Structures are given as C-alpha cells and as structure tokens.
C-alpha cells in the first residue's frame, strides 16, 4: 500500500511565524503536490514537484514556498504565516505523467491566530 504521511494533523501558529509542513511518501513517486482545501472551493494546487529539487507553481503559490531535497519528502513553507492561510493542507504523490491516480496524505489543519 502506498503511504503518504504528513508531519502534523493539527497545527496552531501565530501571525508572522515561519511554518513548515512536511510530507513523506514511501512509493518512490516522482511527483508530489501540495493542495489547500477550503469549503466551497475544493482543492487548489499550491505547488508541485516532478523531481528532486524541481518545482512548479500551481494556481495559488503566493505566500508559500516548497523544498524537495529528497525524492520521498516534500515540504511546504509559509515564510510569514497570515490568518488567511488558515486552512486544510493536503499533500499527494503520483507516479509518471499520465492517468495515474494521486495518493493523498491525511491532511494538516493549520490555524493561524
């Protein structure tokens, strides 16, 4: 079974703090993704990575950065957290280019106060 894990299920941070969200997958997938999930908006792609040290912006990259130093790990960084970044963050991974499904982690519910 593919396993995608995220470092925290719940996280509370203060405005202005630097926040790291970690994601690890154990299936040697090339592609990894960070989504933000908000009610009524579905999932929106923040960033994705198709190889180590490679990244591409998604639909809403502003205020976020990412790091992929190892194939199995993909980090999402909020350089200076703001209250409008309070959300559920989902990590996913997939293999190859075509129709392969994405495997999701359990999500991190981040609250910025």
């Amino acid at each position, binding site marked *: 079974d593919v396993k*995608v894990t995220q470092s925290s299920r719940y996280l509370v941070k203060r405005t202005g703090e630097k926040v790291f969200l970690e994601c690890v997958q154990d299936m040697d997938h090339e*592609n990894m*993704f960070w*989504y933000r999930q908000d009610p*009524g*908006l*579905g*999932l*929106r*792609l923040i960033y*994705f990575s*198709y190889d180590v040290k490679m990244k591409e912006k*998604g639909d809403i990259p502003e205020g976020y950065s990412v790091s992929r130093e190892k194939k199995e790990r993909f980090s999402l960084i909020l350089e200076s957290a703001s209250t409008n970044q309070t959300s559920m963050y*989902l990590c*996913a991974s*997939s293999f190859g*280019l*075509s*129709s392969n*499904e*994405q495997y*999701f*982690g*359990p*999500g991190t519910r981040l609250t910025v106060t």
Partner: protein
Amino acid sequence: AQTVTQSQPEMSVQEAETVTLSCTYDTSENNYYLFWYKQPPSRQMILVIRQEAYKQQNATENRFSVNFQKAAKSFSLKISDSQLGDTAMYFCAFKVSSGSARQLTFGSGTQLTVLP
C-alpha cells in the same frame, strides 16, 4: 484553462437507495482523464473511479459507476445500494493527458450523507 463544476454542495440518500452526483467540466482538450475522489470524515482522500475520455464505455467499480457524456462535458457518479460508509465529501477532478501535465483540477465537492 480547465474548470470543474459540482453544482450540488450537499446531498443525502437513504441507506440501500441509489444516488447520482453531478459534475460538469469545461475544456478545449480532446484527450483527458476524469476522476471521482472520496474524502470520508477525518480520513484520507481515495480514488473511487477513473474514466479515460477516449473510451466510450462508462467506467464501473462495484457499486460505483459513471455516466460520461463527452459532448455535454458531463461526468456524473452513481452510487447504488448506498451504505453508511459512503458518507463522505466527493470531488470530481479533471486531468489532461498531453505532454508533461500532471495537475488535477478539482471541483468544489459534494457532501454526501447516507441516512440509516
């Protein structure tokens, strides 16, 4: 750019009944994939069913089937013999099959509640 629309934010169905969730999409691409994902309460999102646009036959997975109407750009999910464990948020998603595309575009989701 692709868009995916789920017009039913919430639905409910009695246990053992059949329910259909709607999804429409907009694209100028001819080759693509469509997916339904399920997100149970406090659990990980999982793939329910996948449809290749070039296949005319509708995909089925046990109690789950789709009605894919390419010309109408419609991709509905039918759940037969609904079970309590089907209670979840359901997302329709779209992906082009060309080039280096890896991104999924998701709809806003439909919260399905199965009532005992």
